[in-house]
């Protein structure tokens, strides 16, 4: 399409044209959406009037035809409809898809305009888009569909986001700060609710505001709705400011855990608003209800989590549906909790957090990637949709603007938040080792954003019981807009201005891992000596219990014995191995290779220079030439997939646990590298250029099984051959055979070893050589352009989540 071509041009002078074209496309699309949705809604409305059901043209036809048949049994023959339009048949799924598509295109669009997305957070832009769409629908004269229906929101849009958050919740910082988080969530929300509700009531009683009919309980109800920090909004905004882990987990944890408080307060006040008063007994019941709601929610989530973990133990033969278990069990946990009016959010978080260590130990790497990507995808789309719907609902909803009420609400929310945070921090700091500074407090207070949950809760209110519902909704929307727009937009510059510590991007090194574990043991020991049952004591006890009983039940096969450190080490080795291959193995590609692969959507990984240096083999110039010749002759057969690679993926799973072999291999490789450095005459080979097809290898990050498919049972000579599409030249064939005969070294790594080949034969063992050859083959094959089945991988950037140890 012309648009896409235009987008690819880097010149600045055409950027205006690009943007113009993009906006035009968007507008056309919006218009189409509007008309469709508008047209859809009017038959909807007429459909609601008639109880008989079915006013589709088709039904009409059928009705008419039927009546014809009933009355005179004469069948009026019409011309056979070659092409007919039947919108209502597919109306609902079509609309849903249209909305999802709109959301995704919007998201796409924003990131194509980098300047905009760096100033304005995505959530704001999405709300604006929603406003636009709603406005357009209204302009078109149609009735705006009530899209942010509470059922839709709570049952479909919210769970993916919460599950994504819960599954990838960094457990260690969360647990370390659990006291602080709970204080903010429970006490903070209670304080906010009563402060806002109470003062609003006082304001309403003032003469001249025309608000005197608003009673205390509805005010308190309003206060409890508006005071809850919203996880969706917090996630959306905090994602982009990359703040340090502590603050992030504080605000985010608070937004998740205050759900229980909100649920209880909401139900409490809703129930008793009719009655008009709340007795102390009700308060006690409320407290008990809170405990039941929160602990019950967590319990439900944990049960489903354990079920999911247990199920995943048996999925080794049906890897394809593994991700499904994760999703379905979590969703059922949410629904079950909602069924009992327990806190669905806490259930979902508990389910995700409980199930994760065991499920990850059981499922294949591909399934893990699938789970990760699906969760990110769904939560991303959900979030986008929520914000757009917020915009649409703003345009749609009946509004009752009352200056006093709305402005007082906004001010009070801010004030109460600040007072709450400062006051609570004062108390909390007495118990914390690492105290919260003023800067931290400011960010926590400022980051308390309200979002769609508040709106949906307000929407749920009964119109009859609460005549001021529309006013409440207006105030809620204003508050949401204020926090998302004003606070959301300014928090990033403020963070920079205040020089708040940012997130550290680097991944954990194995040193950190070992030493941290060592220190854990040390502290546990010291606590035992002091006779103090502290934090470490309980953590240690939990770990032991986990290792002894739980892991045995829930983790398949022998892997439960695998200590966390080993698992971490394997992950690191594996990552390094991928980086090794990505660095190209060192051979410079002949430039004549046509690149058959679309490089657009591949972002080359940044190689740590240390790895690159370590990984680069060194060999004599003559040998290099020889190797190049061989490769060139072999690699000219383009357009072929690396069959050896594919074959391994098919037999991926049985060899997934070949860690030991791989480690052996690695060790040999390290030894060999050491030998390399002894060679006096060597040549450093530059890494492959970033746009080489070897970068495609990065995509195979999702498929590490290939590495470990060491054919342990291979008989001596490795049988991996690159299936070349066209017949090879005889000398290349000979070279191949020569290599394969050598068995030990050649192909990939063999090329590098060069002169020490003979020595290495003694070193190499058959299985490992097979493995090495595979890797080498993949290297050799990787140089073959156009063969890569490149799975484009823009992917979420939080790679460091994978590095989280299984258990804290």
């Amino acid at each position, binding site marked *: 399409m012309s648009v896409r071509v235009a987008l690819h041009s880097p010149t600045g002078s055409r950027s205006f044209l690009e943007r113009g074209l993009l906006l035009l496309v968007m507008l056309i699309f919006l218009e189409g959406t509007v008309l469709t949705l508008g047209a859809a809604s009017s038959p909807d409305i007429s459909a609601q009037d008639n109880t008989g059901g079915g006013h589709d043209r088709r039904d009409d036809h059928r009705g008419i035809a039927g009546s014809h048949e009933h009355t005179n049994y004469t069948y009026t023959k019409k011309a056979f409809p070659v092409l007919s339009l039947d919108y209502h048949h597919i109306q609902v799924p079509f609309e849903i898809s249209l909305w999802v598509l709109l959301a995704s295109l919007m998201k796409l669009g924003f990131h194509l305009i980098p300047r905009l997305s760096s100033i304005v957070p995505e959530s704001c832009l999405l709300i604006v888009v929603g406003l636009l769409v709603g406005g357009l629908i209204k302009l078109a004269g149609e009735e705006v569909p009530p899209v942010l229906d509470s059922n839709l929101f709570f049952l479909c849009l919210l769970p993916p986001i919460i599950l994504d958050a819960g599954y990838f919740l960094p457990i260690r910082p969360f647990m370390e700060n659990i006291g602080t988080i709970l204080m903010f969530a429970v006490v903070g929300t209670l304080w906010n609710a009563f402060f806002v509700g109470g003062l609003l009531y006082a304001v309403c009683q003032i003469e001249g505001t025309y608000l005197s009919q608003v009673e205390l309980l509805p005010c308190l109800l309003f206060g409890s709705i508006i005071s809850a920090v919203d996880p969706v909004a917090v996630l959306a905004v905090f994602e982009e400011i990359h703040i340090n882990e502590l603050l992030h987990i504080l605000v985010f944890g608070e937004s998740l855990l205050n759900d229980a408080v909100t649920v209880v307060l909401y139900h409490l006040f809703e129930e008793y608003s009719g009655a008009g008063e709340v007795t102390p007994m009700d308060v006690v019941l409320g407290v008990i209800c809170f405990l039941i709601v929160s602990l019950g929610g967590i319990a439900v989530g944990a049960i489903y989590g354990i079920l999911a973990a247990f199920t995943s133990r048996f999925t080794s033969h049906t890897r394809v549906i593994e991700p499904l278990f994760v999703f379905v069990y979590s969703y059922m946990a949410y629904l079950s909790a909602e069924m009992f009016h327990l806190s669905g959010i806490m259930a979902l978080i508990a389910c995700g957090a409980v199930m994760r260590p065991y499920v990850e130990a059981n499922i294949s790497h591909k399934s893990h990637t699938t789970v990760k990507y699906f969760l990110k995808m769904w939560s991303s789309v959900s979030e986008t949709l929520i914000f757009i719907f917020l915009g649409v609902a703003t345009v749609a909803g009946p509004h009752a603007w009352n200056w006093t009420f709305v402005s007082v609400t906004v001010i009070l929310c801010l004030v109460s938040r600040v007072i709450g945070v400062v006051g609570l921090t004062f108390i909390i700091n007495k118990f914390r080792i690492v105290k919260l500074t003023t800067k931290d407090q400011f960010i926590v207070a400022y980051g308390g954003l309200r979002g769609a949950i508040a709106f949906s809760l307000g929407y749920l209110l009964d119109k009859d019981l609460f005549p001021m519902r529309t006013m409440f909704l207006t105030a809620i929307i204003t508050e949401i807009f204020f926090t998302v727009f004003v606070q959301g937009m300014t928090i990033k510059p403020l963070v920079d201005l205040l020089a708040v510590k940012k997130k550290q991007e680097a991944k954990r090194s194995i*040193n950190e891992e070992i030493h941290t574990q060592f220190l*854990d043991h*040390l502290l546990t*020991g010291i606590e035992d*000596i*002091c006779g103090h049952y502290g934090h470490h004591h309980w953590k240690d006890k939990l770990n032991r219990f986990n290792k002894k009983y739980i892991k045995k039940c829930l983790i398949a096969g022998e892997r439960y014995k695998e200590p966390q450190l*080993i698992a971490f080490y394997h992950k690191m080795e594996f990552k390094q191995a991928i980086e090794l291959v990505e660095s190209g193995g060192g051979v410079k590609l002949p430039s004549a290779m046509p690149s058959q692969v679309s490089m657009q959507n591949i972002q080359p990984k940044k190689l740590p220079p240390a790895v690159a240096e370590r990984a680069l083999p060194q060999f004599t110039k003559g040998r290099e030439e020889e190797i190049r010749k061989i490769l060139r002759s072999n690699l000219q057969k383009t357009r072929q997939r690396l069959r050896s690679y594919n074959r391994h993926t098919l037999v991926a799973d049985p060899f997934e646990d070949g860690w030991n072999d791989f480690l052996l291999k690695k060790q040999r490789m390290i030894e060999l590298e050491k030998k390399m450095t002894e060679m006096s005459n060597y040549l450093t080979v530059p890494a492959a250029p970033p746009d080489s097809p070897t970068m495609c290898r990065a995509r195979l990050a999702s498929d590490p099984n290939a590495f470990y498919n060491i054919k342990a049972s291979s008989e001596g000579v490795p049988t991996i051959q690159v299936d070349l599409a066209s017949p090879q030249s005889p000398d290349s064939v000979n070279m191949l055979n020569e290599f394969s005969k050598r068995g030990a070294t050649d192909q990939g790594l063999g090329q590098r070893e060069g002169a020490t080949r003979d020595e290495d034969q003694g070193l190499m063992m058959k299985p490992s050589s097979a493995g090495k050859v595979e890797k080498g083959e993949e290297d050799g094959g990787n140089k073959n352009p156009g063969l890569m089945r490149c799975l484009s991988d823009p992917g979420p950037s939080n790679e460091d989540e994978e590095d989280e140890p299984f258990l804290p």
Partner: protein
Amino acid sequence: MGSTNSTLSKIPNVEELMQETGFTPAHIVRLYDRFEALDKEKTGHLRPQDFGAINRLAMNPIGDRIIGAFFSPGQETVDFHSFVRILAHFRPADKKHPKDPSMPEPVNSRTSKLKFAFQLYDQDKDGKISRAELLQVLRSMLEMQVTEEQLESIADRTIQEADLDKDDAISFEEFRKSLEKVNIDHKMSIRFLR
């Protein structure tokens, strides 16, 4: 409180101890009670067997190292002062402590904590964690669940990562550098010892 004072008076040089370690009298008393509880034979000193009597410590993979850290080289017993001094390493750091260059490094500063941990690794006290020492630690932590080769690979990789001067051992500086991202104040502090 009366009981505090009476207990405090039993301990010799308690003022000096408090100043050196920064513990409050309440803490000293608590630690003294614990010391007496461990010292079953009431000798006023602790021996390795007394430490070994703590069940949970026996289960700890590095339990014997920790016990060993309490005893200065050559000494068979630990008196109360040394006991407290070692535990003072784990006091949460005082943020408000003015950085007085003339005063010696406070015993619960980040560096001191790291040094203490380093000494637990470095059993032969040569100022470096050699590969063999690292292997020992790994072996004890991983509790025989892994093969020797895996251990060696891990040790190799660890040294490779941390070793900047390529002497195949980890010196204190390298140790400190590899842990610069870890919040040592938080990780190596016990709230009890505030």
